[in-house]
């Protein structure tokens, strides 16, 4: 069956996609591993091999990255929590037989259509000019704690509507007859939620956790336009930017400070971190899914 003609067709159909993948991702990925082992500054012609020095330097004398790592963990935790809570809440609202259900869904989803960058500027205006217009409200972006909260609020506003749609799909897959039967048998709302809804939406829970978690770790657009990492703070005796997340830290290391080697080493650490976090999360969620 496999003639030479078939093989040619196979190659011809596969080549464009495979070539894009190799040229755009695989080659730079391998180059990146090499760069992380050099002292290249991104511009000069001299590139010296320095082994693992970049990696060691990050852990020994780069409080900004260690702080970015910790603040990314905090941000990811708060954001996953906020996004999923809001999304479940909204999903429970819009799955009732409401008159304007489709309008509500579209409206809650709409912020997702606005890019993170544009959205960050809009919220910067809201925090700096609208909220602080009222004297009793805090200058959200001026203090570390509230600036982090502001970032979480902004990204929750952007992302919750999307996650909501996934929960909506899950809730709608619960057969109506099952709920009615439970109601007939006298199951209370909380019981129905616990024993029928919850197990049935467990699978979508895994997906939503995964999506919100990875998107939190990769957050860049809202970060750069809302706070640009600010406000300044002190950490391990050095001045750092409090809300600078890992992606932004990597970007500035490489492009503003011209430390390509060190920036790339950070990126590779970031990659492994993301790998570990997402694999662990999926593993535990899957396990609970089976038990539920």
């Amino acid at each position: 069956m496999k003639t030479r003609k078939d093989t040619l067709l196979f190659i011809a159909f596969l080549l464009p996609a495979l070539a894009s993948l190799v040229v755009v991702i695989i080659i730079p990925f391998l180059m990146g591993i090499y760069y992380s082992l050099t002292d290249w500054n991104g511009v000069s012609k001299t590139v010296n091999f320095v082994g693992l020095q970049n990696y060691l330097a990050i852990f020994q004398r780069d409080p900004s990255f260690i702080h970015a790592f910790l603040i990314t963990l905090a941000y990811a935790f708060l954001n996953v929590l906020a996004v999923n809570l809001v999304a479940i809440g909204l999903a429970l609202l819009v799955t009732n037989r409401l008159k304007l259900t489709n309008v509500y869904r579209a409206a809650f989803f709409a912020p997702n259509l606005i890019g993170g960058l544009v959205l960050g500027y809009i919220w910067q205006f809201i925090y700096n000019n609208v909220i602080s217009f009222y004297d009793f409200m805090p200058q959200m972006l001026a203090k570390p704690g509230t600036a982090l909260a502001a970032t979480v609020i902004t990204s929750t506003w952007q992302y919750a509507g999307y996650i909501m749609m996934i929960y909506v799909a899950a809730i709608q897959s619960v057969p109506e007859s099952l709920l009615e039967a439970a109601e007939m048998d006298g199951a209370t709302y909380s019981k129905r939620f616990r024993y029928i809804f919850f197990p049935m939406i467990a699978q979508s829970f895994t997906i939503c956790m995964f999506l919100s978690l990875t998107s939190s770790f990769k957050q860049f657009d809202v970060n750069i336009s809302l706070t640009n990492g600010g406000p300044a703070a002190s950490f391990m005796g050095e001045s750092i930017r409090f809300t600078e997340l890992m992606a932004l830290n990597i970007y500035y290391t490489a492009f503003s400070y011209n430390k390509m080697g060190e920036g790339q080493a950070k990126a590779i650490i970031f990659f492994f971190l993301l790998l570990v976090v997402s694999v662990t999360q999926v593993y535990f969620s899957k396990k609970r899914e089976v038990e539920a």
Partner: protein
Amino acid sequence: MKKKRLTIWILEAITFIVMLIFLLPIYLVLINASKSNIMIAADPVSLPDSLGVLIDNVVRIWNHPNIRFPSSLFSSVIITVLSVGLLVLISSMAAWVLCRRKSRVSTVLFLLFVGIMIVPFQVIMLPLVSWFNIVQTSTGIPMLKSYLGIIFAYMGFGVPLSVFLFHGFIKSVPLELEEAATIDGCAKGLVFFRIVLPILKPIIVTVIVLNGLWIWNDFLLPLIVLGLGNEIQTLPLAVSNFVGSFVKKWDLILTSTLMAMTPMLILFIFVQKYVLKGMVDGALK
């Protein structure tokens, strides 16, 4: 029964109020884009005096040399449409042959496509610039600051998920249709375009929605491949460049954000059903 109807009405009211709160930021953009800078500082929550200021601000942004709105809009459309179109084509072709030709090579290549998805963009971005630079200087093909470079980059970054989605769909398409067409004398390559591609319509919608939304709003990739202030710039780049060039002229900045998000919001009103379905299907696969 009466009690139930009351509950529904209360829920309707609650949801409606939550929606209004949710849309508050967009409302704030709209009213403040219709004011002058002094009026915004005086009271950011008051209603504007007239819509004339909004029209005035829109015209100013449209003609402003620091944002070059028309040409940025054009570039954004070109980059999004071409990237998504090419992605649909090359990914569906690759997924089809990977699915239909059962061999170890197919399996390994498919796993390569899927496995790559775990690599975050941040790991690729730094070497990508120097790699594109190497290609550009050694071959003369313009990879940086060009349409070619950024569209090609989007093809590379978009291909893994797209191939994965098409592959999953094609698996469920019965082989008999294609076999019948082959027996009827249709060349195998043509079978794909005449028979298979039309069947893929539902998943093509998903692929278009997911990639279109991402590429339209993306900031980081255009930032490193095109750069700020380049001749070719996408809308997010243009807005960022514009904000950077002014010390908080909020009337114009808000008008620019309003104008940047309007095309997508209008499009969404018309294709809402497909977008919501596409986003969910993409996540559930």
